[in-house]
């Protein structure tokens, strides 16, 4: 029966492509597991910033070393994923990449106090920042989610630096996060993951404002800042 034969071919072809996809997913999963483990390690290393001012520099150095390793992992991932299929398999590395964006931007902020641009973060991971028809890149949405994670972490840092007696950092954080907040307001977000994460930003902003407020009514703000505020 010719009809039956065609149907059989349709299904056997499909099964073949399913099998290949499964195999590929397995490979991707394994790479992602390793790379993800490194990100957890970096997260742990960077936790020291909340209770030990002196060790921040050291933690950043350590994080930088681990980023190198992570970028090797991303290199493997880049090879494993067919260049046209980035968005087909994106779910495997999506959350991991968001965490890396957070960790990298945090490290750069701790080092220099500036916002790490999209292409800088991508280059630390050893991948492209530009979305093209083909190729592995850093999705802009993942980068933005990473920045939102950064804001949450900084709001915690603001509280902890006050506890430590550092009254300058909350102001620096406040300025930085405010700027990011203003930036995020420029985006037209639809009802997706990024939007939900953005909606949580206001709580971080509020927390930082409260810290700055507490400091200012008690006259605890650093001298330079105080005089400009009064002027």
């Amino acid at each position, binding site marked *: 029966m*010719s*009809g*039956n034969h*065609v*149907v*059989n*071919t*349709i*299904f056997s*072809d*499909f*099964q073949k*492509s*399913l*099998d290949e996809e*499964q195999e590929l997913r397995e490979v991707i999963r394994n790479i992602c597991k390793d790379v993800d483990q490194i990100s957890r390690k970096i997260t742990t290393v960077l936790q020291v910033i909340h209770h030990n001012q002196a060790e921040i520099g050291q933690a950043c150095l350590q994080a930088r070393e681990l980023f190198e390793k992570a970028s090797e992992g991303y290199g493997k991932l880049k090879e494993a994923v067919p260049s*046209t*299929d*980035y*968005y*087909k398999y994106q779910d495997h590395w999506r959350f991991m990449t968001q965490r890396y964006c957070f960790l990298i931007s945090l490290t750069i902020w701790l080092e220099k106090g500036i*916002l790490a*641009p*999209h292409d800088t973060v991508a280059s630390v991971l050893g991948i492209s920042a530009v*979305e*093209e*028809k*083909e190729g592995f890149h850093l999705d*802009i*949405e993942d980068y*933005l989610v990473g920045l939102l994670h950064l804001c949450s972490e900084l709001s915690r840092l603001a509280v902890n630096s006050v506890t430590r007696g550092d009254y300058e950092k909350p102001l620096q954080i*406040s*300025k930085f996060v*405010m*700027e*990011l907040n*203003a*930036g*995020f307001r*420029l*985006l*037209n*977000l*639809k009802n997706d993951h990024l939007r939900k994460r953005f909606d949580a930003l206001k709580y971080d*902003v509020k927390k930082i*404002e*409260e810290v*700055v*407020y507490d400091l*200012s*009514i*008690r*006259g605890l703000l650093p001298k330079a800042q105080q005089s400009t*505020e*009064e002027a």
Partner: protein
Amino acid sequence: MSGRGKYRVNRQKHSQTTLSNVAKEAAISLPADSPVLAMFKDAALKLNDRQDRHERLVKLSRDITIESKRIIFLLHSAITEEAAEKAVKEAKERLEKLTKGPIKSIGLELENIPAYLHSRAVTAGLQEFIEARTFCSLMESKVIITWSEVQKEFQYVIKGDEDERVVVTLLTQTDYMLGIADLTGELMRKAINSISSGESQACFHACQVVRDLYTGYLGLFCMGKELARKMSTTRNNVAKVEAAVYALRVRGGEAPPLLLLPVKPEWETIEHSDDEGFY
């Protein structure tokens, strides 16, 4: 108590400091042209582009869905063999119009965009198109057109001023298979319709195709979520079509074709619960 006094003075000086003031000051102190804001403006452009494109694709996909449903309806409407031939001819023309119209537009829209980024926007339309396309090919030549054949139809040569380039609208194999799963529903309807028009041969053929397809789906593993969801509908379709064929065999000799149908209302009620067709 000098400490207290100092505190008071301080407090007076800062009597204007409220929580909202803190926020306002921080907001005002932002430079309008800071690199951070510039970066976000850039990001906003990228995100807007993506969203607009997505909306355009959803619209195209909806157009394809509507026209495909109409084509399927047209194919069902033919009762006699001559009418069927005419319907197939018209359906073919309309399908071609779809391939050269909205489906080509999808390909052009996504020419420089990573594949799969917007696959969710177009999947519904493409599935419906596959349903119509395979149904048409089945009625025309009793053979289901394969995925690679349809994919070949989705290749377009665009002539520029000097050069030619090829644009392909990506049809994922999963979309194709999802469309085929819907096809079983159409075949089931066709089988039942052909009983009422007295063409038992067509009915048996449709029934056999539904069975073959169902057998194929049973053999798949790791088929993915959406396909697994369609399996129960497919199973119902097989049950319905087999019941119809059974009725035809058992009572076929003794009753006029129309009498074989009363069982239908019962199926119809189930049908509306899980099958997406309304015709």
